[in-house]
């Protein structure tokens, strides 16, 4: 009994000494889920917004949001071949982050106070404004106030029309449809007079059509990058990456690539960040 006791104690002491000397930072509090240092990323994007996030027939995604996501992931050290895009419609965005279906979301995702309680937002990477699209030959509408008495397209599930008829109490007649592309058709067929929503979305849908954007913005939206709630390190790293994106000219290039021909006045200086929380 005595004989066996000493070596065992020796081992225990050696183990204790090893534990004392072990490098820091591994044992106590596990870091919150973060995208920093990830080998691969699953990124949520829209599938139905031309020039922002659109799923093509071959299953690949394209658009401004997609290019921004690829650039930012690259800044985090994740090359394009290790990015998986997933379609995340507006209604499932918070859930997709919470249940881990996606690591981050770049999908015309506006930062709002209620959303900030569930999602950590990096950015905004762009500040679009609500603006109005009219027929090219229509000179009677110059600002949102001129929509008084006009027919305005109302898309189910979108809040943009409320900003005109409810928040500004402009008495326009609402014409209800399901999608913005239907709005474009109705505009061409002179069944509505105006479509009003985020200018980037308008520019995307109007591409290749004859409509005219008023360039009379009346709100500031904030397109942010949604992250798991609490991923402050990821948020800070993305904010630095967005800063680089504007400083190295990528932001201006991408905006021009996707919206340059739309006639929309684009902002190529860096937006004011929201702050990571």
């Amino acid at each position, binding site marked *: 009994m*005595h*004989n*066996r*006791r*000493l*070596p065992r*104690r*020796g081992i225990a*002491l050696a183990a*204790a*000494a090893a*534990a*004392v*000397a072990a490098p*820091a*930072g591994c*044992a*106590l*509090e596990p870091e919150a889920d973060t995208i920093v240092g990830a080998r691969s990323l699953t990124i949520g994007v829209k599938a139905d917004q031309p020039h922002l996030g659109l799923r093509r027939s071959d299953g690949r995604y394209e658009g401004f949001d997609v290019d921004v996501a690829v650039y930012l992931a690259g800044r985090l050290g994740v090359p394009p071949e290790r990015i998986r895009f997933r379609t995340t419609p507006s209604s499932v965005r918070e859930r997709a982050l919470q249940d881990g279906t996606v690591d981050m979301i770049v999908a015309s995702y506006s930062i709002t*106070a*209620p959303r*900030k*309680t569930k999602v950590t937002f990096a950015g905004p990477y762009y500040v679009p404004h609500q603006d109005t699209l009219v027929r090219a030959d229509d000179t009677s509408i110059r*600002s*949102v*106030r001129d929509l008084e008495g006009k027919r305005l397209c109302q898309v189910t599930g979108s809040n943009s029309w*409320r*900003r005109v008829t*409810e*928040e*500004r109490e402009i008495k326009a007649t609402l014409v209800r449809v399901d999608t913005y592309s239907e709005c474009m058709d109705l505009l061409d067929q002179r069944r509505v007079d105006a479509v009003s929503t985020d200018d980037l979305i308008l520019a995307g849908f109007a591409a290749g059509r004859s409509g005219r954007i008023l360039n009379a*913005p*009346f*709100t*500031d939206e904030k397109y942010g990058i949604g992250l798991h709630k609490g991923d*402050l*390190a990821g948020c*800070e790293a993305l*904010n*630095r990456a967005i*800063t*680089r994106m504007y*400083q190295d000219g990528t932001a201006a290039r991408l905006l021009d690539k996707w919206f340059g021909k739309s006639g929309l006045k684009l*902002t190529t*200086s*860096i*937006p*004011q*960040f929201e*702050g*990571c*929380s």
Partner: protein
Amino acid sequence: MTTPPSSPPAVATAAGGAPAPQAEPAARRPRRFRVVGLRTIPGRIRLYTAASLLSVVLLLGVTMAAVGNARDGVQTIGHDAGPQVMATGTLYFALSDMDAQVADILLIGREHDLGIGRAESLRRYEQRRAEADQAAVQAAQIAGRDEARRRTVREVLDGLGRYERLVGEAMLLDRQSAHPAGELPQNVIDTYRQATDLMKMELLPRAYNLTLDSGATVRQSYETDRDAVLDGRLRVGLAGALALALLIALQVYLAGRFRRLVNPALALATVLALAVVAAGMAMLSAQAGHLQRAKEEGFDSILALNRARAISHSAFADESRYLLDPGRADTYEQVFLDKALSVLYVDPGLRPLNLETYYGLLPGAVRSYERDPSGPPVEVLGLFGEEKDKNLAEFEESRLRLTVQAYQRVMDNDRRMRELAAAGDRRAAIELRMGRQSGAITAFDSYDQQLTSLIQAHRDEFDRAVRAGDDGLGGWDVLPPAAALAVAGLVLAGVRPRLAEFR
């Protein structure tokens, strides 16, 4: 614990190199001990003693490392980066207030005594300009070799040059036209639009992002330092346990071998080691607490509230812009609402999110800051909402309450001003906004004072935590080595007479 002299092979081989002459501490040791080595009682005593002393050295090492981490933490957040980052917040405030002063000057036109007066606005403009310069220098210093941040600072300074040129032009046109308050000629409006757009689109975002980014650096180093202090505490505990175990083992061995109950010197060494370990761990816990208090209740709140203050000032200036540029009144109203929401957000539910709704919901939100709010609970978000959810001292809580109450009075004036303007009585609206007696400026100043004193409360909390951190570390550069020396001395003093018995 009476281990027989015939030691197991594992230990014998492991310690085989130890008895080599150069490794032995005492040259005058009798020869025979070296020959018989660890198999004898004195050999065993030497082994235990050496192990104890080594463990004391280890304990000293980890303690000093943890003290160093704690010191770094307090230094960074309390003395270096923390205060510097708070100072860069001035940049955003100063820039935004420069533009606010310009808006007021242009709005009042030739009526130089409206509001705080043209001369006072000019004086404030110059003062903010100087403050912005100073804060930019600070920001450049913090940026260090970070190229992206240095470039941002440069861009701010370049932009400021262009901004001042535009403002100079607008003021010249303004003086030449000598217009009555609120009736600006289009060329003044157009020039001012360029200036204020430049400020809003290019200068303010960069200034804001600079503070956020350097704040992120502070957060990261805080997390690292605090983790290191807590890890250090664990290591001190483990190293302490090891040292105590060895000291007790030595004590027990001596008691068994020499038939004495207690070796007093060794017992004293053990008690001393225990005391230092306990004190060290307690000190490190306290340091982690001080760091957390300085960061969360001080630094974070100060940054957030300074942001709220800067946003409030620029929102207040949006009222002037709303009056001076009727062509953009809708935009300035929307921007005002956005700023109000970022300061204090109330969920509109199904109602449209406009100022009308906001005015209506605000009293309920402000009531929720009372100690025992009546009515159903109201969820408040935004900067003031986040402050409310923090763990506040009673004093801070009451100042926060006074601040939001003063904020509500500012909003009441805003409502009256917009009602007058909407009814077409621009003159009355301007007098309400700019008049010295009529309230809007007085109400805003009193809100600003409440907010400043709330910020000061957090600043005091920050200073207290930093001072506690500094004080708590006092003596910890000297105490561990001194205690280690004392323990080592006592161990040797306790063991020596026993070894002497074998001479």
